[in-house]
């Protein structure tokens, strides 16, 4: 099949599952800082830098040494130019000195300075790059690791899109301040060094240079701060534009079938225009500052040459010294323009870090017990005792629920929408813990089990399947070492054999969001195989074949019945065909078990149950 059919799974998704956070929300790039102060940004920024340096001290040292070499080379270059002017050019052209040796020395010096500067640039940039990238890598890993440890209460309250945006965008923002850091250090060395150098040549010129540079710094910090605030605003609008595009494209079918293309374009145009206007305002303000900053070295040079020339007249200075100072100023041209960027990157990074810390500082981890014992035998015994549960306080989903399933039994949980079926399933799989009461598997409290024990004994397939960007085989084994033969058996039992064989590379075909698109029913069958291949002692099937065509479903169910699984099976289902697989049915309504018995018994004794199961037929006959 060439085009993916919209999965019925998605349509049938219950509200509870949405609450579980299983829906992938759009990525949001917006959400820059609320209102930080200049002081808080500086303080936090330095703390952040300290943290990153501690993690990568070696590369930081390389970067700093590089920065020092770089700054030193610039200062040396100005000395060299001064020397060349006075002792080479004037000496030869105006005083007829012997050119050969002087020119040779001049060339060596110039090359040496250039070489040191090049090495400094390499060291500075490579060190900073290593430090930034390694820290970003480490931070991303830590965040994902942290999220995987958190409990579902925490997880379900955060849109997945937000978490992804922290992992992607915010980590990038946070580590961004490391890139210009060594250059900033070099710039400060330069600014101080050059003021000192000029001061050493002549105090008047030194004071002039220092005051010009001071003015530039003040101007830059102000500009950077003002521009950052406007930039944050712009980013928010950028996020809104992206959100409109996401939403509008998601609903493209609806937009088109209602002929609303022009209206949607107008909706985007309004936000896009406001983004354009903000961008223009930002540029106007930013450029006013920047052109002032850019003019400062030139203005300083004019003043210095004028003052210097007067000093030359009175014999205090040589022309070479004036040339040297002017040259120095021309070298400061770029460092000065970038120094202000530090404040900008501080602000962006601390804002990113606030959101990263919003995850790393919360430790609502799943608590595992110490019970490492494993139970013998094939099917597990389930005991649910007085279990109550609510996703949100005041909205109970399960109340005082009791349930026991003897080993090896196949039971069905049946109930109307929102009766708590799926919730019961996720409690059995210990994705959540009961708010009160206890669930035991072979007399062991689920909450007391050591990490990894439960997943070894239990497998859970839900109607919403999640596929990884991996081969069919990789998606089924999820890293377990399982003989190919067993994998193939599971694939066959799950009714996936035929379509998997038809895939371009069979079991090795890459599936998942970014590769081969499977239909909803096909995805569910992969997930079913994933559960079956584990030969679990407890198998939970939560409407796990809802998107599979009825005739295929019938085949799968017949196969499962014939396979004599080594499991206790809990099936959550709507369709009678799935229910027919069970030895016993639990009828769930409003969060508690109303009745239990065989399908026929319940049909006879429970009018609500009978009504639920016959609703579709009734619909057909009435019409």
């Amino acid at each position, binding site marked *: 099949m060439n085009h*993916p*059919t919209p999965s*019925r799974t998605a*349509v049938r*998704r219950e509200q509870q599952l949405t609450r579980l*956070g299983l829906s992938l929300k759009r990525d949001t790039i917006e959400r820059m800082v609320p209102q930080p102060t200049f002081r808080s940004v500086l303080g936090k920024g330095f703390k952040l830098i300290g943290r990153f340096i501690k993690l990568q001290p070696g590369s930081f040292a390389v970067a700093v040494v590089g920065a020092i070499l770089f700054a030193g080379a610039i200062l040396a270059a100005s000395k060299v130019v001064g020397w060349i*002017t006075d002792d080479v050019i004037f000496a030869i*052209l105006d005083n007829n000195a012997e*050119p050969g040796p002087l*020119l040779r020395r*001049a060339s060596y010096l*110039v*090359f040496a300075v*250039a070489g040191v500067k*090049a090495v400094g*640039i*390499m060291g500075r*940039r490579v060190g900073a790059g290593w430090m930034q*990238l390694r820290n970003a890598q480490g931070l991303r*890993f830590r965040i994902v690791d942290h*999220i*995987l440890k958190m409990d579902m209460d925490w997880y379900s309250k955060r849109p*997945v899109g937000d*978490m992804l945006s922290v*992992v*992607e965008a915010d980590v990038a923002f946070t580590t961004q301040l490391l890139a210009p850091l060594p250059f900033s250090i070099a710039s400060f060395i330069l600014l101080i060094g050059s003021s000192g150098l000029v001061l050493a040549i002549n105090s008047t010129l030194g004071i002039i240079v220092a005051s010009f540079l001071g003015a530039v710094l003040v101007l830059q910090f102000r500009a950077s701060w003002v521009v950052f605030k406007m930039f944050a605003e712009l980013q928010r609008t950028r996020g809104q534009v992206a959100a409109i595009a996401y939403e509008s494209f*998601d609903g493209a*079918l609806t*937009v088109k079938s*209602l002929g609303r293309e022009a209206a*949607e374009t107008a909706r*985007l145009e309004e936000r896009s225009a406001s983004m354009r206007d903000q961008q223009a305002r930002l540029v*106007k303000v930013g*450029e*006013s500052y920047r*052109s002032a900053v*850019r*003019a400062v070295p*030139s*203005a300083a*040079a*004019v003043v210095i040459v004028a003052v210097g*020339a007067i000093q030359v007249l009175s014999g205090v200075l040589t*022309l070479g010294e*004036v040339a040297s100072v002017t*040259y120095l100023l*021309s070298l400061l041209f770029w460092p000065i323009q970038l120094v202000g960027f530090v404040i900008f990157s501080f602000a962006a990074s601390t804002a990113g870090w606030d959101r990263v810390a919003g995850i790393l500082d919360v430790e609502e981890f799943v608590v595992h017990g110490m019970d490492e014992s494993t139970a013998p035998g094939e099917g597990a015994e389930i005991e649910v005792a007085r279990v109550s549960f609510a996703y949100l306080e005041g909205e109970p989903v399960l109340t005082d629920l009791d349930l026991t399933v003897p080993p090896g039994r196949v039971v069905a949980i049946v109930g*109307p*929408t929102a009766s708590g079926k799926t919730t019961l399933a996720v409690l059995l799989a210990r*994705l959540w813990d009961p708010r009160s009461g206890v669930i035991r598997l072979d007399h062991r409290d689920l909450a007391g089990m050591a990490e990894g024990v439960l*997943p070894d004994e239990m*497998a859970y397939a839900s109607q919403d399947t*999640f596929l990884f*960007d991996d081969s069919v085989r990789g998606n089924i084994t999820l890293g377990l070492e399982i003989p190919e033969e067993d994998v193939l058996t599971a694939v066959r039992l799950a009714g996936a054999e035929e379509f998997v064989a038809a895939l371009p590379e069979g079991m090795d075909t890459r599936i998942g*969001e*970014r590769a081969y698109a499977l239909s909803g029913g096909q995805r569910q069958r992969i997930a079913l195989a*994933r559960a079956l291949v584990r030969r679990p002692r407890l198998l939970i099937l939560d409407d796990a074949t809802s998107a599979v065509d009825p005739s295929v479903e019938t085949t799968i169910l017949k196969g499962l019945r014939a396979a004599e699984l080594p499991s206790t099976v809990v099936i959550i289902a709507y369709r*009678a065909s799935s229910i027919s697989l069970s030895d016993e049915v639990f009828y769930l309504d409003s969060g508690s078990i109303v009745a239990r018995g065989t399908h026929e018994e319940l049909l006879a004794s429970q009018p609500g149950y009978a009504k639920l*199961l016959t609703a579709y037929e009734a619909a057909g006959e009435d*019409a």
Partner: protein
Amino acid sequence: MSKSGSGAVVVLTKTLKEVPAFTAGIKLTLGFVALGAGVELIPPMFVRRVIDSAGDFSKGDIYVWGAVGMTGVVLAALASRAGRTRLAVAAANGLHDLRVRTFERLHYRSILHTQEQRRGALVARVTADIDAIQRFFDWGGVGLLVGLARVVFTLALMFLLSWKLAGLVAITTTLYVFLLVKFQKVLGRAHDRARGSVANALAIAGEAVSGVPTIRAHGAQKHILGRLHKALDREFWADFKARVIGNALFATAELYSGSITAGVVVVGVLIGVRDSFTSGELVAFVLLVALLVDPLQTMVETIDSMQSAAAGLRRIFAVLDADIEVPDAGASGTPLASGGFGLVTSGVNFAYGDGPQVLTDINVEVAAGQRIAVVGETGSGKTTFAKLVVRLMEPTAGEIQLGGIPVSDIPFDSLRSRVTFVPQEGFLLDTTILENVRFGKPEATEADVFKAFTDLGLTDWLSGLPDGLQAAVGERGSKLSAGERQLVALTRAWIVDPDFLVLDEATSAVDPALELQLRDALNRLLKGRTSLTVAHRLSTAQAADSVLVFDQGKLVERGTHAALVDAGGVYTKMFEDWMAGTASSA
């Protein structure tokens, strides 16, 4: 895969031509930029003036020169500010135009709904791709122009001072730039590799975060974290390598500048010894060489962002230049006449792109006022058929007529107001229920919307919501259940008051009891209107005037439910499976 620099220039030129906002007032802008670029040339000239006077100047001279220099600096700064601002504002205007045009084009084309898996990538056309171009303008585009102006001015001034030395500088600079562009390609490839591995690592991180329930239920944390670690490490090395290459390239500018400074001093002195080249001129020349290096370095760094921007532009033009697959008949078309109308299809085939045939030779005739059910297994082509009827797509062969007019001749204005399609996934905007229903008919009042819900017998459901019509539905309608979303989508179609309603499993997620009630309401409302219902439950087919059975892209059976059940064909088998799935036989 790194595109050559010339390719980038071609697509950038095309952009400037097709989006006039980019070049509005460009002559004046360039004038300002050129004037502004002169600013850094003032000090070297001033130095030359002072030195060449060899002490033979008065304080008065210096004041005059100083005043002239300072005026120049201020004027140039103002010009530079004007030029850069104008450039950036023009860029913002142009990008806005480009974004809106691309967005609009995507909606009028069919890729968004025929290639759903590409939607995420298409969003990037109006976000990430435009952002890449914006970055180019912010960091490179303006700098590139200004840098170019500086290089040209500096070289011109050098030629004025000494054509021999200037020639030396010009030739070596050209050589150096040539080498840079060559190595830039190596860098471009490294950047492409880095981008690829970044995308991969982020995707794997994304999987781990969105798959938490699955990972936990299967105890696969270690496996997933191992994968992530590997991907992040690959990302690190690819990224780092690209940076090392870039840094090395950047650092060569220093070596170039060193060699050229040394060369200028040596050659300049030798020329000076023979000719009448003054020491002041030579010193000014050395200062000018320093001015040449920075813009060159910046330009090298810009090439990379220029290539990203060009790649984004190429993708955007791929959207803008492609034809609209399903064009509007517009004013030259024939609107639908008033009153009910039927449907005729003859020899209709359909395939997605070069893919396999999805529908083959579909011939259907539906009289006005009939209720038709379309059934078939997943992939049988029934949804595709429904989409062709409402002209969301165009058949690859054959013709579809509504009320005797080929659908391709009916202007969309007329078609969309008389024929409504309700897809399976009722898509809701992140706003209130009221606004979502109004999306179908913007001029509808609150009373109209309420009446539409009343018509469909949904007032009980509506009054159960905390804020009734004003209830916010959340992002993609996530605060409602799937079934509730379908109710809103159905009401939204109903308020259009269509003469022909096409429902594609539009009530599949609705609670059975409510669905029953809804069906009664629809039966009442649809009297005198034509309807085509793609059905998941055969109970719908039982109630229809006629059933169309699709199997593997072909219309295999048609007739009333009763007749088809007895026919012993595909439908009979489907009905048996369906019955097996319902309570009576369990």
